[in-house]
């Protein structure tokens, strides 16, 4: 009698946990993305390609895609641009338009690529990084009203793919840690949403 009651309560508790965990995970990753984005914004520009960044905040987006799927990745990826732009005062400026276009391209591409079998988050992140740069250059060309800046795009994409792979492997280590933790919890009788 007492055991059935206990397990029924367990069931409610695990259901509550199951529904709140994606929210908590997404929120933590969004915070991480913003922190990494702001940190990187305060670093000096790269020597050879001052218009490129490593894109460390994409670590959080890749992790969100792996753990929470496309919707969590979209919230983290787009939400990060909005929040960081608010914090740096760039919101609704041309810079914001470029960043938002890049983020939208990146998240969409990573979601598509993540459905391709045989690719790990390293591959997703590389593709996302390339898409981010392409999106930004398209936005820049539209804003400038001339396609001239696109000349800079191919070398930038080549560099960005390598940066993306580095970011992807960093994300990879976070993903496997979290997944291990969730697997252990399931072993202890907890739940593992997605």
């Amino acid at each position: 009698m007492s055991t059935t009651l206990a397990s029924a309560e367990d069931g409610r508790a695990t259901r509550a946990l199951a529904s709140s965990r994606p929210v908590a995970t997404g929120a933590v990753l969004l915070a991480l993305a913003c922190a990494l984005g702001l940190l990187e914004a305060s670093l000096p520009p790269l020597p050879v390609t001052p218009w490129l960044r490593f894109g460390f905040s994409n670590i959080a987006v890749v992790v969100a895609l792996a753990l929470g799927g496309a919707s969590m990745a979209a919230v983290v990826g787009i939400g990060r641009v909005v929040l960081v732009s608010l914090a740096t005062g760039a919101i609704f400026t041309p810079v914001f338009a470029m960043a938002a276009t890049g983020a939208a391209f990146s998240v969409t591409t990573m979601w598509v690529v993540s459905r391709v079998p045989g690719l790990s988050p390293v591959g997703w992140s590389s593709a996302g990084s390339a898409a981010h740069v392409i999106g930004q250059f398209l936005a820049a060309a539209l804003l400038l009203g001339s396609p001239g800046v696109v000349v800079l795009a191919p070398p930038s994409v080549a560099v960005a793919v390598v940066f993306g792979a580095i970011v992807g492997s960093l994300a990879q280590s976070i993903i496997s840690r979290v997944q291990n933790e969730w697997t252990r919890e399931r072993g202890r009788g907890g739940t593992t949403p997605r």
Partner: protein
Amino acid sequence: MPMTRGDHIFVGALVAAALLVWPLVASAGSAGDTALVTGPEGVSSVSLRADSAFVVQGRIGEVDVLVENGTVSVEEASCPDQVCVHTGAVSAPGAAVACVPNGVIITIEGDGIEYDARIR
């Protein structure tokens, strides 16, 4: 899950594709390196990548334009104060040589790679 074989191929292919497209885009982009010659008889476009010399018919006379080493200058003009000749050779996108009495304006087209904003 470590980096897979698929990742290696995929990342390599992306870099290769970007590098392959580079020359195509670069040539298309620098095609904007032209000078736009506006005169009373109309507008014409001249490439700065090949040296050339030509005469533009102005309102009060002729304007001799010289294209050399990617720059454009006015060699000789039939105007009183020769401002256009003294302007010298220009090559930067947006730069212009104007011979106002003749109604001839030469502007460099193309997009300078100069930063207005930097994405941070």
